[in-house]
Structures are given as C-alpha cells and as structure tokens.
C-alpha cells in the first residue's frame, strides 16, 4: 500500500516510515500540509497518516482540503497525534479523519489500523470500479443490460453448487461465490475497444472481423490488470481480470486468447464461459434467434470436455431448473419493461396505439383507444 506520512517532526517520520516499510508498505513523507497536497495530486496515495499540529496548515485543515478535493475515490485519513480526549476526537472526525492513533505509537497497533483502512478502501474501490466499468460496457451494446444480470445469477448458481462439492471446497468458498457474482458482469468489458461495425454487425463475422472481436478478451484483461497494479490487494479486480481473459478458453485448449486447457483455465473463467454461452444461446441477438433451454442444454452437453469443463457442466445440469427459472424471470421483466415503455410513449404518440404489432390491443389500458378504436 502506498502511504503518505505528513508530519513536521522528522523523528516521527523516520520511525513511522521505517516501521511501515518493514510491513511491506511504500511510504512517502511530507513535512507540511502544502507539500502533502502537492504529492496527492498524483492520485497515488489513498491512505494518509498526518499530524495534527503543523506549521502553516494544521492536520485539521489538511483533512478538510483532502475531503474537498478528492471526492471521486476515498482517501483514508489517520491522525497521529499526542492530543487526546473526546473533544479533540470529535473535532478530528468532523474535519474528515477516519481514525486516531496516539503518540507515542506502537508499531503493531499502527499496522492493524492501516489494515482496517485497507479494508474500507477495498470496498470503496470495488464498488466504484465495478459500477463504472459495467455501466461503460452497457452503454456500448444495448442488448447486454439484462445479459449481465442473468450471467451473474447463473454464475452464482454454479459456484454455489461447486462450493458444496468435495473437489472444490478448498477453492470455492462463500467469498468466491460473492466475488464471481460481483465481477462476472465485467467479462466483456474489453468490447468497448471493438468497433461498432463488428460489435453490432447483424450477420456472421468474417475471419478478419472475428480476429478483431477476439481481442476483447485481451483488451479487457489488460485494462483490469492496470487496476490490479494499483490495488494488488483487491481480490475482486484479480478475479475480474481472470474472467475477462479466460472466459473464451476451451477445456480442450482450442479457445482464445491463450489456448489454455483444463484446469490451467482459471475456474472463474470456466464458470463464466458456460454461463455466457448458455445466455447467448437462449436469448435473441442481432445475429440469431433465441433457442429454447432444451436446445441450449443439448449443445452444452455435446461440447462437454471440448468446450466446457465436465464439472461445470454437471453443476449446470444439476441446477438446470434454476437456470430456466431465472431466464423466465428476466424474460417476463423485459417484456413488462418494454410494454411500460411503449405505453408511456403512446401517451405522446397516439399513432402507436393503432400499431398492433407493437402494442397488442388486449394490453391497451381501458379507455386509452378513445375514438379511434
């Protein structure tokens, strides 16, 4: 973790810097609030330890500046001070500090409190990153909205099933299930780098176009890998990266982009791979109609051991009723939302009320047809 220590006492910065380095942190020191704010412009520091009493700008003022300037990503602030008492703690917390450590500090206590800060930061960066990336992906392809939601439900079912199997118990725990639910919507994030003429093409892709399309796995994983470099402690980013890169790998090694085979394909990628294909088969796309669950199941069974991991297929088959239920739930929701949209538009465009192909007469609210019925 990169930590900025702000104190005009070089004795303190010497000890704190050395101790934190021993616990594996990268420490930068600043002797004043002004110097600290200048260093923070780089966006590198998300955890700041600061003294209360400093010349020119006090720790309290520095806290307020940080809170005013850095609202996009959270900066965790620990005050290291000889001040004590409820009044001081309240004043510090009001200014935006997250925690207090008394001078003289104890190394173990300091590190435990930093770990608490890291946990808060991990939550913050996880939610922000997933939300912003998923929204970005959604904006490129109108069809993918519910796809992302279905995918994560399918993944949760498979991962939940595996967590109860002896073979996967050590690898798949409740955290894994939660992480795959959270990160699977990012599997196609790399498609933001694919041109519209290919991504939205209604017919089959040419060989050249498919080669470009395949790049989305690499683009997505590289993007997420850059985030992993900054937040190596964030497990969700690691899983999101692995999923983005490996969800098109085939169990027999004939997939892309790396041609991985068997268990060398990350488990999360093998799970998302099946969920993604099932959803693609059972929903309408610009280039194909929707297949029934039975047809999709037969295709998946046929590709067991070639495309799909037999263990994942087994989890799918043993939970196929849940897959069908989820698909139906989302289908009903989409139909309801489409109908609601048309109804709201019809209030402004009366001609729509006479277009039965878009608006079946039986579903028009009573009285809405007026004199035209």
């Amino acid at each position, binding site marked *: 973790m990169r930590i900025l220590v702000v104190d005009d006492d070089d*004795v303190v910065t010497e*000890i704190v810097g*050395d101790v934190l380095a*021993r616990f594996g942190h990268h420490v930068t020191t600043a002797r004043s609030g002004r110097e600290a704010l200048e260093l923070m412009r780089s966006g590198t520091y998300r955890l700041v330890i600061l*003294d209360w*009493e400093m010349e020119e700008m006090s720790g309290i003022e520095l806290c307020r500046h940080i809170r005013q300037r850095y609202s996009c990503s959270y900066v965790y602030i620990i005050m290291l001070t*000889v001040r004590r008492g409820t*009044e001081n703690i309240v004043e510090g917390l009001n200014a935006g500090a997250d925690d207090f450590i008394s001078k003289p500090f104890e*190394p173990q206590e300091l590190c435990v409190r930093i770990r608490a800060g890291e946990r808060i930061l991990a939550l913050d960066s996880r939610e922000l990153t997933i939300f912003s990336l998923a929204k970005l992906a959604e904006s490129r392809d109108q069809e993918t909205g519910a796809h992302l939601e279905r995918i994560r439900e399918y993944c949760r079912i498979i991962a939940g099933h595996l967590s109860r199997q002896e073979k996967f118990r050590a690898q798949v725990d409740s955290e894994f299930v939660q992480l795959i639910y959270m990160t699977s919507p990012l599997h196609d994030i790399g498609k933001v780098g694919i041109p519209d003429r290919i991504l939205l093409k209604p017919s089959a892709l040419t060989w050249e176009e498919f080669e470009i399309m395949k790049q989305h796995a690499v683009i997505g994983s590289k993007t997420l890998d850059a985030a992993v470099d900054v937040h190596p402690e964030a497990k969700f980013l690691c899983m999101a990266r692995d999923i983005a890169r490996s969800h098109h790998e085939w169990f027999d090694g004939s997939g892309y982009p790396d041609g991985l085979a068997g268990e060398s394909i990350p488990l999360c990628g093998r799970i998302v791979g099946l969920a993604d294909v099932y959803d693609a088969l059972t929903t309408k796309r610009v280039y194909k109609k929707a297949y029934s669950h039975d047809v999709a199941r037969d295709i998946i069974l046929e590709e067991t051991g070639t495309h799909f991991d037999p263990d994942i297929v087994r989890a799918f088959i043993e939970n196929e009723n849940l897959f069908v239920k989820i698909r139906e739930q989302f289908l009903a929701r989409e139909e309801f939302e489409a109908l609601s949209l048309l109804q709201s538009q019809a209030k402004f465009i009366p001609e729509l009320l006479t277009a039965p192909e878009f608006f079946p007469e039986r579903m028009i609210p009573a009285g809405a047809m007026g004199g035209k019925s």
Partner: protein
Amino acid sequence: MGQRISDSAQKDGDSSRDGATESPNGDVFNSVELLNRCMGDRGLVDRVLNKFRSRFPGEMEEITNALKQGDADRVARVAHRVKGTAASVSAKRLFQAAADVEDASRTGRLEDVLPSIERLREEWEKCLHEAEAMSSLEHAEQAVISDLQRV
C-alpha cells in the same frame, strides 16, 4: 484547553511508568520501549536519536525568541512539537517538561513560563547526555560484535 492537555500529559506520563519493561536508563529514556517502537533495529534507534539531538537546539532557540517577542502562542506550538518528539523517543521527563511549558504558555502569562522553560532545558541536557551514552554504548557493542566476527 490548557488544563485538559495538562491532564492528558499527566496520563501519558503515567502510562509510560506503567510499561512492563524497566528502563535501563532511569527516567530519562525508556530505551526498551524505544527499541520496541523501532522494531528492535538499533540502527534505526541510532538514526532517530541523532535527529533528536540535532533538532532540539533549534527548538530551544525558537522558544527563546518567541518568549522575547511575547508570542505565547508560538511558545506553546514549539513546546507541543517537542512534546511529540519526546513521546516518540520515549523521553518521558522531557515530554512532561515540554507539556508544562505548553500548558503554561496557553494561559498567556509568559512570566509563569520561565521556570518550566528552565526545567525543559535541564531535561534536554540530561537527554543529550543519555542519548550520547546510548549511542556510544551502541557503537561499542557494534565494535565488539565486529571484532568477534573477525575471530
């Protein structure tokens, strides 16, 4: 405010005395506590004490100048800084002396501050002497270790 800081300073003094380890250097430094804070690294202790020794004369000069100018607030701020440093190197009597200067100067009556500044200076002299002794001892130990390694 002054009273509250004084109370907390007293508590700090008490907490230092409550430490499980007995300081080999009497009341001037709790070297065991300092060594623990420095994760057992005697080299770090040495570097920290060097910084501590080199900084204090400047702090004393600043307090003296502020006193001459009748700037009680500045005296309090510098004393507070010395207090923080003293806490970090486990110099508990220096810490208490600095806390007394800070408290006295917060009242605004600088004539009351003079005795506590004198005590601060005395405690500093003791710290300087003890820090040099600790450093010499450290170097002597290192020399012995080095000699033994050559045997």
